[in-house]
């Protein structure tokens, strides 16, 4: 009997004990853990937003998105600036990026798709408003990611549901071919449209502009649709696959539709955001300058629409470390990576110019004009220029930024003739010229007996280029309150403003101008609207106002955009979508402005010339469409490579 009891007991144990082995692993986070609480959703969102492709403080074409080391800065590829580490035009070095754009973007898209597919099953945990808002954010992030792909590559595979691979089955259905470029732009538009329809006016989780709301989506839709419109209008590269999908290029007939979408989306923000005018005064140029400076650091700015925030030590950048003028160099030893070109500076108002638009540094007799201080040439410069560029001799962090190429010891009586013939690309002749090779200088004794270093504290040094090689240094974004001991790599935390209202206005003006020149008319007078906007921007900048709408050309709108959004990593994409990169950088050597001190005259003069390094910028038109990474094609041979690679 006992034996039977044991058998029964054994059977009982065996039959009941293992009933629940198939339970979810406790050490892996499951969908219910993430999708049941707002905290779980926030964690998911944190990942989506950190993956959001933006050309911010941590971007350069050379090293890609979200990389700390920015020594080939974007402005040095666009003609806005020169940098010692960038010696010519370049396309984005996609293959060498630390974060692979291709697989990284599709990871983000999958994260969005998964969120969009999964959240509705858990909707009962939340209010409808919460669910809609979060879905809107996922669509927004997906739209941004497709945007980042299509603006680089043209048509890409559209993957709007998660793909699941079962081991041992065919991978053919994972090899999704590229869609047409137009289809991808339409996908971007539809994702943003969904976000606009579902997001609230202010993000209820974070309303500081670091997460999307309805208007953020609308602002980016205006940027994206303007991009698509200009591609349709100006692109000349085409590529079709075997099924006649147009992978590169959009039919020109689609241009006006995109421009109209850009215009309408931009107009949605009317009255919601405004140009930053907190410390602006119509009559005070210093106030206008300070206002434009503050715009980039005031967290309560009514102009900031979408921002990326940084926090020490989790998420940091090194903008100041790389870009402070040489005399304010931080302990890491970096400085002056972005040196604005004279070509860029000459776009602005308030500096004396020749009839061809170049800076007037000579007097009527063809000799150098002489100045007591280097800033005298820029006495009436547009306030926005001063807030964007450190001009030679201007004040920053309580110091005058001293930029001087050398001391001219030759005779000054009767005027000083140009050191080189006009247009010469030769080196300066060293007769009558005292220069300094490095920042360790030997002072020169001036005729009065006072000592003066040949070069300024911030350059220019002929032997090393850690100085203002163009005669200018960048001002925008620099934090004037950061102690020099803190000017370190991976230590800066100022906020990146990815989208500000000025851009939305300029998107609207450009779309309006393009619509008008295509003979379109709308409820508003497009030309008049563009005219009003340009003057709003110019007025805030302290620039000369346009006198009539009729005098505007597309270049008026474009140059305004380049001045307003300079050093914000926007010009790179503008030159690309206008397809003017290869026209502007066509054997181009950018110009610089070299201040000299005349020992005999006791005054300064300026020499305008081409880059002393003779660095030639030639943009290859095939770069308008980037090369699809070879690894992606190897994995999915259905992907057709872009032309010319």
């Amino acid at each position, binding site marked *: 009997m006992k034996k039977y009891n044991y058998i029964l007991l054994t059977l009982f144990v065996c039959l009941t004990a293992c009933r629940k082995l198939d339970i979810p692993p406790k050490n892996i986070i499951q969908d219910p853990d993430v999708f049941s609480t707002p905290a779980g959703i926030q964690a998911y969102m944190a990942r989506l937003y950190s993956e959001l492709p933006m050309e911010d403080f941590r971007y350069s074409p050379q090293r890609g998105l979200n990389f700390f080391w920015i020594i080939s800065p974007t402005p040095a590829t666009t003609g806005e600036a020169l940098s010692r580490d960038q010696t010519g035009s370049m396309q984005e070095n996609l293959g060498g990026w630390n974060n692979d754009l291709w697989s990284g973007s599709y990871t983000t898209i999958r994260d969005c798709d998964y969120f969009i597919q999964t959240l509705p099953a858990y909707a009962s945990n939340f209010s409808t408003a919460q669910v809609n808002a979060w879905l809107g954010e996922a669509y927004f992030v997906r739209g941004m990611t497709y945007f980042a792909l299509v603006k680089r590559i043209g048509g890409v595979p559209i993957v709007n549901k998660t793909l699941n691979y079962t081991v041992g089955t065919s991978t053919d259905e994972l090899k999704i071919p590229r869609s047409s470029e137009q289809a991808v732009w339409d996908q971007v538009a539809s994702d943003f449209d969904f976000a606009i329809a579902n997001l609230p006016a202010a993000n209820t989780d974070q309303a500081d502009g670091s997460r999307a709301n309805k208007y953020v989506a609308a602002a980016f839709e205006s940027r994206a649709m303007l991009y698509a419109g200009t591609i349709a209008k100006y692109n000349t590269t085409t590529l079709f696959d075997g099924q006649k999908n147009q992978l590169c290029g959009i039919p020109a007939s689609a241009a006006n539709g995109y421009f109209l979408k850009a215009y309408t989306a931009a107009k949605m923000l009317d009255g919601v955001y405004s140009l930053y005018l907190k410390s602006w005064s119509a009559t005070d140029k210093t106030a206008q300058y300070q206002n434009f400076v503050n715009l980039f650091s005031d967290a309560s700015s009514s102009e900031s629409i979408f921002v990326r925030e940084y926090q020490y030590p989790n998420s940091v950048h090194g903008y100041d470390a790389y870009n402070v003028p040489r005399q304010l160099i931080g302990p890491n030893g970096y400085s002056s990576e972005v040196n604005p070109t004279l070509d860029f500076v000459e776009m602005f108002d308030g500096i004396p110019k020749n009839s061809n638009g170049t800076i007037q540094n000579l007097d009527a007799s063809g000799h150098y004009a002489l100045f007591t201080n280097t800033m005298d040439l820029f006495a009436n410069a547009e306030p926005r220029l001063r807030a964007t560029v450190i001009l030679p001799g201007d004040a920053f962090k309580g110091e005058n930024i001293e930029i001087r190429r050398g001391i001219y010891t030759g005779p000054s009586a009767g005027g000083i003739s140009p050191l080189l013939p006009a247009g010469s690309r030769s080196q300066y002749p060293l007769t009558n010229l005292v220069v300094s090779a490095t920042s360790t200088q030997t002072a020169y004794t001036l005729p009065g007996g006072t000592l003066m270093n040949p070069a300024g504290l911030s350059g220019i040094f002929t032997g090393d280029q850690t100085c203002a090689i163009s005669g200018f240094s960048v001002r925008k974004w620099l934090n004037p309150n950061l102690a020099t001991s803190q000017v370190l790599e991976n230590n800066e935390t100022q906020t990146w403003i990815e989208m500000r209202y000025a851009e939305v206005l300029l998107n609207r003006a450009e779309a309006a101008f393009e619509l008008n020149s295509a003979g379109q008319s709308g409820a508003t007078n497009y030309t008049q609207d563009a005219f009003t906007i340009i003057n709003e921007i110019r007025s805030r900048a302290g620039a000369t106002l346009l006198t009539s709408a009729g005098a505007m050309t597309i270049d008026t709108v474009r140059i305004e955009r380049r001045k307003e959004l300079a050093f914000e990593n926007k010009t790179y994409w503008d030159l690309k979508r206008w397809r003017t990169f290869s026209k502007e950088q066509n054997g181009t*050597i950018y110009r610089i402005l070299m201040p000299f001190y005349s020992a005999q005259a006791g005054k300064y003069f300026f020499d305008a010339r081409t880059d002393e390094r003779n660095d030639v910028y030639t943009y290859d038109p095939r770069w308008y469409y980037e090369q699809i990474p070879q690894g992606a094609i190897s994995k999915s041979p259905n992907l057709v*490579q872009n032309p010319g690679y």
Partner: protein
Amino acid sequence: MKKLFYYTAFCLAVIAGNSCSKIDNYPAPSDTINGSTIDEGTGATVQTEIGGGGTRVKLLETSYSANPTPEYFQSMQDGTFNDDKIFAATYKVSVEGPFVPLVTTDNTGTVTADSSQTIKLTSKATLNFKVQPFLRVEWVGKPVFNADSTVTVQVKITRGTSNPNYQLDITDINLYVSNTQYDGNNNYDPRYSKLVSYSGSTGTALLGQTITITTMGGAMPAQDVYFRVGARINAGLDEYNYNAPMSAKYP
């Protein structure tokens, strides 16, 4: 213990001695495709630039797949090409460069013309492609040193095609100066080369005329240099048509 050691050593020796007896390698590709890109009108090869920006040969290995990933190799500067590291297979071969494309599509993606050549490659194939260059650049005389040691050259530019799609305005006519014969848009001395961009039809108006270009930047350095003139229209990948580089001895 010692026994174990010897056993192990013996086994290792047997393994080491036997394992690599079969080298599992295929022979390296050893077949050759060579030939040239020839101007249909003149019979001369079409000059191009070296590096990634000039004429290249496109191979589609159709015996491997109906829709293969293309392979490319670069043409030489004088318009001839030679690649002796190609696998034997069936290829559809074409060339891409500053001339009317051999494969053209209309604005809906329909292939309207395809003069690719299909070859079954065994050991060697010589292919000559007759093309219509966008522009022909021809020397008129030789480069001449001026009294101030600058150099003046003369060229004549004509269209190489009557295809109505490629009667576009000339956008650039550039005189390139280099101290090697590999002279072109990707390799020139910016101090002396004279680059001129044209807008509208001003460049086109120079077609058929003798164009005189002088180096810039003052006296040339006392060394032998090569001169070459490139011109382009805004078509395809905006590549340049060139004349053959010509040297001039410093007087």
